[in-house]
């Protein structure tokens, strides 16, 4: 391709890149800068990472919830992805549609719906009381259980799609070969199919964990202020206390942690493919 031609395509990319660099990357860099310059130059803000027990708790909460969410999403999502890879075309379209629809529904509405269901006067508790399974309403919102349910609900589609994608790529012949060689169903699954679906599982875990870390809306609504994860903590630091140094430090820590995590994982998986580009 001639240089003149190339130039045209560079120009085509330019506006989007410019916009993103100026109005996205630069502000992020500013956040990083502010974390070491506000109120004064230096790493004092980061001292809180070591000193502040509240911050420790927030991080612990966050990581624990994210890890659990990832676990739940993978465990519940694997059978769905597996089934999707085996069933016929129409059946599969229906399943994909359920997933895609849920995925695109406003996260706000989903959290709201879960509040409807899980709160003390909500549907679930009413049903449990009615059936006589419990004497008192079960506390399912404003605690970690509610948050986990809400987050797992959001993350399931994100977990299923990459796993399905990699399962779809497993040629039938491997399973047939295993059976032909005498393998029973569980042997075929654990020794042949599961290992071959590993890339999808890894991709799914990465995606779910990454998105969970930065999650704001669902934990805020379902956690009711009792379960504070890092995203909400950042917002609170900014909104209510306007401590720029502290807030940007929190944000920077999260950003750096995410970047490191992605960089680590990028060695084993193709990050771009995972995100679909």
């Amino acid at each position: 391709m001639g240089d003149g031609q190339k130039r045209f395509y560079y120009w085509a990319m330019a506006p989007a890149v410019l916009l993103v660099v100026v109005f996205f990357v630069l502000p992020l860099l500013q956040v990083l800068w502010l974390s070491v310059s506000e109120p004064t130059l230096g790493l004092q803000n980061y001292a809180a990472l070591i000193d502040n027990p509240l911050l420790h708790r927030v991080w612990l909460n966050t990581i624990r919830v994210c890890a659990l969410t990832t676990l739940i999403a993978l465990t519940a999502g694997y059978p769905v992805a597996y089934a999707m890879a085996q069933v016929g075309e129409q059946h599969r379209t229906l399943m994909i549609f359920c997933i895609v629809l849920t995925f695109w529904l406003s996260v706000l509405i989903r959290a709201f719906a879960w509040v409807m269901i899980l709160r003390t006067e909500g549907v679930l508790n009413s049903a449990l009381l009615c059936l006589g399974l419990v004497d008192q309403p079960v506390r399912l919102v404003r605690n970690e259980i509610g948050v986990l349910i809400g987050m797992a609900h959001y993350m399931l589609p994100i977990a299923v799609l990459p796993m399905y994608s990699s399962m779809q790529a497993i040629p039938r012949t491997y399973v047939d070969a295993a059976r032909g060689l005498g393998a029973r169903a569980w042997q075929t699954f654990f020794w042949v199919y599961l290992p071959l679906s590993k890339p999808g599982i890894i991709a799914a875990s990465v995606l779910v964990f990454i998105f969970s870390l930065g999650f704001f809306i669902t934990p805020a609504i379902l956690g009711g202020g009792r379960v504070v994860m890092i995203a909400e903590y950042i917002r609170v630091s900014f909104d209510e206390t306007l401590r720029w140094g502290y807030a940007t430090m929190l944000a920077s820590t999260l950003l750096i942690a995410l970047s490191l995590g992605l960089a680590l994982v990028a060695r084993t998986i193709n990050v771009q493919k995972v995100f679909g580009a």
Partner: protein
Amino acid sequence: MTGHNFWPRLRWTLLLAGAWSVLGFLVVPMLIVVPVSLTDRNYLSLPEHSLSLRHYATFLANPLWFASTLQSLLIAAVSAAASVFLGALCAIGCWRLSNGWSAAVRLLMLAPLIVPTVIQGLAMYRLWAAAGLYDTYAGVVLAHTITGIPYVIITVSASLAGFDVRLEQAARGLGASALDTIRLVVIPAVVPGLISGGVFAFIHSFDELVIVLFITSREIKTLPKRIWDGLQDRIDPTIAAVSVVLIVATLLLLLADAWIRRRRAQRRSIAAGPIAIEPQGRAA
């Protein structure tokens, strides 16, 4: 004879049951908003004596809700259009160049999906305030355009993946300029990607909350923001009504997208690109 088939069939039935239970867990809880929106009481509850549409009336008649809806529609439409334009150009450029630069650009363009929205909001606040974009339509449109571009890039790239580069080369060889080629040859082929990208960017902007919380205060009160505020002080069934409307709207948009894709695929019988099975990262 059927004994040989028993265990496999049982396993399969259990698997399907399990899969559909999970899918049920995904879909059914969303349906709860429907009965709640039809309650005859004034507080969050299931209908007691009769179904009532008054909460829908409240939503539609209330000037504040109406204003928010309009704002959201406007902002979403404009930012989606901008995202499609910029994102498509970028995707086409990347696709054609296919070198180290374009790979880096692709990665860069994915950043708004990966970086948590809290951080994005925090970062944008300062710059928006300094640039006089705080609490303005332009400010929100700008923010949503940037965060919507990744969706367009993903869908258009997917469409381009199925497009034969040689068609473009043939056009160039026949004397068409780069711009003409893009206009007359490439764009028509990636229209499904453009439409899907536009739909997803629209839905993203319409539902976006976190960034809006950071860069607006009184002037701009998009629909999600009003719902959020409603959830903070007094949750009333109007929110359920709004939710139902939003669910139906999303459903219709997705169906329209799927239908358009299918029709184009039938008419042209070329790959319409994957049904967007990889919509990623609606960070919250």
